[in-house]
């Protein structure tokens, strides 16, 4: 099976290791990967900030970059997938030339855990991660894409992993893109609550499956002087330690 990699701008600029691990895991499943080099950003930051006219050309070029190839598109970010799957249809409503393309592409764009569990039916990728971990459910994967059990299923198959539930696992960490800089004090309060809960678990790692939340939560842990590390789900699944 061919797969197109949608690496997302945040992961590209801040989490290259996660992208490399994504390639390793997908290839270990026998998939043939393609990387459309013209990709930049899906337009979500501009869209969510209210600049829809500026987001539309980005969405259009994203559709043309990935739409030519009928292969499924896989991304390490539920947030970016939610943008492509749901918000593009608002940018290109019925009657616009891109609408059909947007619908077509939406149906074959997947978040990483979604692709493994729902599309491939894979929950065990042979990972080993002998650590005590907890998990923060990112909003857009959870509520935008309805992914409530997939990550747990994948983690359940990781050897040596000890899972500790996170209090208020499903509460937003306070990132919210533009929100974090428009209302920094509120974002701070939300982030600090999240960090408090993470500390309370006594975990060594907190698993997060979206780059924005990862930036926020790992920064918050750093600020708190905590040794707990925030890692992407993919990094855990690629671990063979």
């Amino acid at each position, binding site marked *: *099976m061919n797969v197109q990699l949608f*690496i997302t*701008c945040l*992961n*590209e*600029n*801040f989490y*290259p290791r996660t992208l*490399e691990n994504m390639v390793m895991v997908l*290839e270990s*499943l*026998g998939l043939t990967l393609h*990387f459309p*080099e*013209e990709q*930049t950003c899906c337009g979500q930051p501009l869209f*969510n*900030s*209210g*600049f*829809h006219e*500026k*987001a539309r*050309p*980005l969405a259009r*070029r994203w559709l043309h970059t990935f739409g030519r190839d009928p292969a499924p598109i896989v991304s390490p970010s539920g947030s970016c997938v939610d943008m492509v*799957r749901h918000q593009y249809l608002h940018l290109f409503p019925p009657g616009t030339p891109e609408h059909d393309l947007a619908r077509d592409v939406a*149906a074959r764009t997947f978040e990483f855990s979604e692709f493994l569990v*729902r*599309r*491939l*039916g*894979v929950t065990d990728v042979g990972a080993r991660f002998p650590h005590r971990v907890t998990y923060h459910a990112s*909003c857009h994967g959870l*509520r*935008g894409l309805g992914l409530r059990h997939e990550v747990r299923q994948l983690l359940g198959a990781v050897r040596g992993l000890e899972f500790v539930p996170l209090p208020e696992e*499903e*509460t*937003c960490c*306070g*990132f*919210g*893109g*533009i*929100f*974090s*800089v*428009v*209302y*920094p*004090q*509120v*974002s*701070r309060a*939300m982030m600090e*609550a999240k960090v408090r809960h993470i500390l309370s678990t006594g975990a060594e790692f907190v698993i997060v499956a979206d780059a924005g939340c990862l*930036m926020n939560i*790992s*920064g*918050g842990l750093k600020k708190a002087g905590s040794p707990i590390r925030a890692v992407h789900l993919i990094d855990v699944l690629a671990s063979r330690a």
Partner: protein
Amino acid sequence: MSEPSPRIDFAAYSADVPPGIPAAVQQATGRFAGSRQARVAELPQWEDLREAASRIRLRTLENLDFYIERLTERVQAAGGSVHYAADAAQARQIALEIARRHGTRLAVKSKSMATEEIELNRAFAQAGIEALETDLGEYIIQLAGTGPSHIIVPAVHLTREEIAELFRQKLGVDAPPDPAQLTEIARATLREKFLNAEIGISGANFLIAETGTLVMVTNEGNGRMVTTLPETHIAIVGIDKVIPDWESLTVLLKLLARSATGQKISTYTSFITGPRRAEGEFGPREFHLILLDNGRRRLLRDPLGRQTLKCIRCGACLNVCPVYKHVGGFAYGWFISGPIGAIFSPQMLGLERAGQLPFASSLCGACAEVCPVKIPIPQILVELRRRAMEGDPSGSTSAPLAARLTAALSALVLRLPWLYRLGTRLMPVFSRLLARDGWIAVLPPPASRWTDVRPFPAFSARFRQWWKQRKRAAPPVREQVFPASAQETAPEEESASVTLPPRPAGTPAEETARLLEELRKLSARGRSLTEAELTHALQSLVEEQSLRRAAVWETPRLRALRVAERLSALGVEVLPPGADKRALAECDLGVTEADFALPETGTLGLLSSAEKPRAVSLLPRVHLAILSPHVLRPDLHQVFQEAKAHPYLVFITGPSRTADIELTVTLGVHGPKALYVWVLEESSSREHDHDSKD
């Protein structure tokens, strides 16, 4: 509450939230959200109900003129008056005129968002009429001189000590910081006011066009006082509250309390169609409905506005909103707060005034997930952001220059892959100058808004180079190891049509057992008994509650059971028929006969007539309702089919309760403190009604 400030400044407030607010708000919201979750889990058809509710609300709003016309017609046919207020000033004017006509000095109010919206209290005060809030939470904040901080528990931001201090200052009483005792003080103070008020002012949760019925939901019983005791009732209600029929109400009522407080149904639900029909029945002589537009018609022309007006004001979105939980209700600058406030206020007041609110969200979507009428709040927030940044239909834009410049620059870079790729290669170089251990601790404005809170990760793009090298090395391709039969994901499922069958009934014995079990959970005293046990049971009740005076409904069944005679024989003074409100207020016991009972929620349904005065189930300290098993109904649906022809119905679910002071549940804030429900087994009592065994 004072006139809203010209511009709602969420930024200024949220940067400096008073310290006690987040903890108090989080305690309340956490409890409500938790109970809601438990109720939702009990109801397998929850998602079907939400879908149905969303459709009902939207369909009604799309045809609102038709339903308003029908409602108006039916209210008038029932003997009520309907007034139409285009804006807040007109609504105040109409209410004031009615009050003046009746020489009003005191108007008692039950909780109403519409009157907060039009700031009715201030207008009444200026006209020299006292408009007194009677919901305990609203009463407290009225004494404090502030607005509500939560839709359901408006005084949640105040501690018991602060409330006690307020009572000492404003009421001149010795008030200990104890929720039960504070509630008792409020009960005594407000009871006098209820008895003296010339006018009762309420809002409504729904208006049923089919019959012209006002539906009002409360827990304390103050809503019943306001609509039962004064001679005139004025209801001020937004036009968006109209629903087509009782069938729609079945759906919405199942969702409302569960979403709001996590109750199956609120303690009291009143269904009022016009003024009282008979003297001695209680209820107002005059019923006035003021339908408030105040910008709602303008919202109805916009798909966004119609979605927003679906709201049934349950507050579920507040209870799960992480932003609201950290800032509280005042940050939103108007009477309605939280996620619904962030979409409602900008549309009602305009983006010039409320343009900050759509940005006061991380778009986490928790609100939309719990909304019982499925308002797509995040989508609306994003569309309002678009209007703020790109201009709304009226052409105004409030986008700050910095935001526009940042957007323009990033849009340019992201459109040109070569420029973007150049950026990804250059940023790590720059960022190496600033970063230590992979983190940038400080950045200049505006990026300092991030680094003031937590460090920024160093730029480290390298995937493209890595990918190229890897392709050159050409890794081996392996066989597929995943099962080929994996299922496809359908991202957009089509919503199916909704059919909502009523709950099937169990056997009479099962239904009775269920009713008693629900009553127990509600702190009501339910039991099943035979007529032979009646005198003994009454005797125990009289002793347990030290009853000296009672009022008894004059129904054939209660007469046949000789309840009044049995009470007299036990030394209880029984009021003669037609007792007035003061006499009833001094009663210890009111005895009624339920016309309906809903085992699922532990609810009694009582109709009203001259023989069945409404105040008997309201004013006495103890309420005893007697019912026979044949009034048990499996679902709201059946009750409504039978009851909708009646001009008055009240649902009673447990004793009067409040949690307005620090969320401590206190029974008997306005209505009865104790509720006894006796299911009288059908033991051929009618044949032997002359045969008193005692």
